[in-house]
């Protein structure tokens, strides 16, 4: 889906939500979550070719192991942020905080191999 279509789907969802609210407000959270999931899946499809291109390019040049954590971190940050926003919109702020914490821990885990490589080289230089 292109950005235009995504915007169209989002506006349609907002209109539907405003129509449904006075009639059946109980199903609004579920509708909100469903719309968010559809949009997130569409975004993955939109970003997929760009990520594949960068991954292939970095693999060809030889710095895949450095570019891969950046791309994964980006994806995790986007996913955790989107999920946390959905949770907050549904009135579950506590769950949103845990989702964001999980995302941050995941990004930190991605950094660990890079830190290890850097610190091992620094240790070898200092020890001589």
């Amino acid at each position: 889906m292109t950005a235009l279509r995504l915007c169209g789907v989002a506006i349609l969802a907002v209109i539907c939500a405003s129509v449904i609210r006075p009639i059946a407000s109980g199903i609004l959270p579920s509708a909100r979550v469903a719309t968010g999931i559809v949009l997130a899946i569409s975004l993955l499809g939109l970003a997929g070719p760009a990520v594949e291109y960068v991954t292939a390019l970095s693999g060809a040049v030889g710095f895949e192991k450095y570019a891969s954590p950046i791309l994964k971190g980006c994806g995790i940050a986007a996913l955790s942020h989107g999920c946390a926003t959905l949770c907050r919109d549904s009135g579950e702020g506590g769950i949103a905080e845990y989702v964001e914490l999980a995302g941050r821990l995941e990004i930190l885990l991605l950094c660990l191999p890079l830190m290890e490589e850097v610190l091992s080289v620094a240790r070898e230089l200092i020890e001589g």
Partner: protein
Amino acid sequence: MRRALFGLLFAALILIAFTLPCYAAEEIEIGYGEFVDELPNTLVDRLPSGDWGSDPSSDATSLVSWEHVSAEISEILGLGLGASLRILAVLMGLILISAAARSLCASFGGRSAALLELCTAGAVCAAAISLQYEILLGAADYLADLTLLMNAMLPVTVSLYAAGGNVATAGVSAGAFGIFLNLSENILATTVVPFSGICLAFALVGSMSGGLDLRSISGTFKRIYSTALSFIMMLFSAVMAAQTILASASDSISLRATKFVAGSVIPVLGGSVSESVKTLAAGIGALRKSVGICGIALIALLFLPVLVSLLLTRAVNGIAASFANMLGCDREGALLAELSSVYGYICGVLAVCSITFIFTLIMLINTGVAIQ
């Protein structure tokens, strides 16, 4: 008639005797062959092709010839440029990806974006250090090779001083050489790499922590190290120069007195002794100049690849740092700028060490032969 024939025969024999080469000469043994055999392996591969290592004069000429110098420079630049451009391409690619990822995640706000900045800075750090680790080790290898070269050069310089009658100067030179070789082997070669590692650690902590700026501590540490090193080298050079000049003057006085006594006391041949000593002195002077220039050319041949590699990598880090700052990747820019600065200091350390050794060889070239 018979007398005339005998006279002609005798004159012919005398004339033939004059045409025969007949001279008194002594071959000056200075250990040049052993010096050539002990050259470091990295240097042996860069020597001119052909019959090198038999005569100091022709060796020095071939080392400083335009063909050899231009061939060496073009080879070193070609290899160095290729490797440096590859490092630059990798760094700039990573910085581009980092900048794109940061701008995408900046919209999320909060701590996820900050952690992603840490991730991107870590990726650029790891790439920069792992690609340039060999270059840093090359600096330590250069100091080890330089010490090997000067260890091999020491007996030759002492022999050249002694052959020219500069006996006291030979002693002073050997002592000074030995002290500086110890200094180079035990202090310089063992501190250059840890110094780089410590500066690198400061840069890493500063870029990873974000709020903590360790550049001032790192700068102070670098200034202390370079000041201490410069002071030691300056002191060493000044003391060595003073001792060499004094010892040379002392040698000159004592041998001139000896020459005067020989010329006055030895009947008939006293003047000839004086003249033949002058010829010998000229020969030894030419030999000293050849060996000195040979030694300086060998140091330059050893230093040039390392210097070009360090300068190119410094330029690459500087360009990548400017590129990172331009794209808003301040952490990566600060780290790469610090790396560039560290390479500059390493260049300075190696240059100071090389120049001090070159200075000792210049003392050899310029010290007058005492037996003149």
